[in-house]
């Protein structure tokens, strides 16, 4: 009996050994790319010394955090990160839902597909390309806005790349232009899936188009909209580095309205060499970001467990 069991066990190990081999490269990558850096976060509590490395450097307690939160930067980057993301979530959702509803009205498949494809082109482009497109409009000496639009209204040229007050609008417009197509496609596929009988019945009852949208379309796509929004809210402490770094062209005079946690960490690490501050900000982002994921999920689970992420 014992012999049979032992044999079975041995066969068991042998039977999943190939699975171990299959999983090995992916697992190794996750360990290197994801898990070691997680432990590397302890660098935020250290006085980093290049020759000693992360784990060899001397402990420094909470000094890095003290320095970080004493600066004005900590408040600015937190405020910018959250406010921009909040604006992006709201505006992208409204635009994407509206355009998806309009797309659903187009009966010609050719046109519908054409519009969809065009709307997605900006989403396909890298942020570097986008920064060139923005530059064509905003360049101080040769930009379309300063040279063609503003003269029509008799307004003096604006120093776009050194006037922080315009950037909340510019970055929001650029972000919406580039990203909403993605959400739009998702919402459209959900609208297309709604049973046509609802609309037929509503039409028979004399419901107007607007009433149909309000009472059928929107309630039917609510679950997916909620899910995408929750997903975005859980990532509210992380921002699109490219948008905030490439599009304002890393211009120092704009930092007040363009600096977010991700750009702050990058500049601290690679441009200023201020590893203490940079790693403290990184740790701050990782921890608060993680808490936000758990909190949003817990709230969603309580209100509507269908939509919980995990």
């Amino acid at each position, binding site marked *: 009996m014992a012999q049979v069991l032992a044999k079975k066990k041995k066969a068991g190990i042998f*039977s*999943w050994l190939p699975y171990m081999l*299959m*999983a090995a*490269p*992916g*697992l190794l*990558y*996750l360990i290197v790319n*994801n*898990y*070691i*850096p*997680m432990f*590397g*976060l302890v660098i935020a509590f250290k006085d980093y010394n290049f020759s000693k*490395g*992360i784990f060899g450097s001397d402990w420094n307690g909470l000094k890095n955090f003290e320095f970080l939160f004493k600066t004005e930067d900590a408040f600015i980057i937190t405020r910018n990160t959250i406010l921009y993301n909040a604006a992006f979530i709201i505006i992208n959702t409204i635009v994407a839902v509206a*355009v998806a509803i*309009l797309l659903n009205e*187009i009966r010609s498949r050719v*046109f519908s597909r054409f*519009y*969809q*494809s065009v*709307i*997605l*082109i900006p989403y*396909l*482009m*890298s942020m*570097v390309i986008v920064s*060139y*497109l923005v*530059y*064509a409009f905003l*360049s101080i000496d040769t930009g*379309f806005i300063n040279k*063609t639009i503003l003269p029509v209204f008799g307004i003096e040229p604006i120093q776009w790349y050194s006037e922080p007050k315009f950037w909340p609008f510019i970055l929001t417009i650029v972000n919406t*232009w580039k990203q909403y197509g*993605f959400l739009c*496609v*998702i919402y459209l596929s959900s609208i297309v899936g709604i049973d046509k009988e609802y609309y037929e019945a509503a039409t028979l009852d004399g419901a*107007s*188009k607007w009433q149909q949208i309000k009472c059928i379309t929107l309630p039917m796509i609510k679950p997916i909209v909620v*899910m*995408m929004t929750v997903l975005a809210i859980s990532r509210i402490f992380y921002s699109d*580095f490219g948008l905030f770094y490439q599009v304002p*062209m890393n211009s120092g005079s704009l930092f007040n309205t363009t600096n977010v946690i991700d750009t702050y*960490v*990058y500049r601290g*690490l690679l441009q200023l060499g201020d*590893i203490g501050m*940079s790693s403290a900000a*990184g740790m701050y*982002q*990782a921890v608060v*970001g993680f808490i936000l*994921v758990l909190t949003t999920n817990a709230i969603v689970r309580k209100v509507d467990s269908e939509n919980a992420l*995990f």
Partner: protein
Amino acid sequence: MKKSADKNTFEKISHVILFLVSLTSLLPFVLLLMASLTDENVLLSKGYSFFPAKLSLSAYTYLLDQSSVIVHGYLITIFVTVVGTVVSLVITSLFAYTLSRKDFPFSRGLTLIVYITMLFNGGLVPTYFLYSSTLGLKNTIWALLIPGLLMNGFNVMIMKTFFKNNVPEAVIESATVDGAGKFKTFYLIVLPLSLPIMATIGLFVAIAYWNDWYNGLIYLTDSSLFSIQNILNRIMTDAQFLTNSNLGTNAGSIDTIPTTAVRMAIAVVGLLPILVAYPFFQKYFVKGITLGAVKG
């Protein structure tokens, strides 16, 4: 009667709005293209415009002179995209397959390991030190291939779900009964049934590699390894980069460079391939986006 008229008007209004929306998506590209085709002197006096007073190809002639830098950048981009996508598909599909197997006792544990990476990450600072100092990737081609892009939890979960839902357990079992090993079952049975998901994930990974400038920005100081995106990124701040680059076939007098137009022309050169290829993969791209929204 009235209702169908109502429906038609609504469709017409939709057409008008969507036409304007599409125009908004496209106009910046038109401006870029027209700017790149404008005569340098006109640009300096009138700026970038949709209707340039005088057209000129001088920016493109200049780029042609400097084409060795651009071609080199594209070769790097193509190499990284092809190698990265293939390796990514191999390790992602193998890994996801083991997660989908019920006869593998560690599949739940490994799934949890993937989940955690989607919720929490170490961020730039430790990642940078690991790759650049500990692993010595700085200023090597590996820096463009490995960090961040090779595999992600999201793709693993999508593939795992696909394997679970679309590869019938009975097929795998019968292959096992016939004496096929795990690897053989995977590439003879599972893989052929999974081509749609491989194509979709492969497309998105390829686009990510093609568009990536972040790894180059962080890990490369040696411009001979620059991908086309990194070259574009550098030219934005340093318009003379092409001429000054150690790769450039020095085109003589620097003061004749139509800098203002060249800026736009290089961007056109940078976005053209993906734009030309877009109609061919558009369908899979749209499908892939909706796939990502389905819970893994």
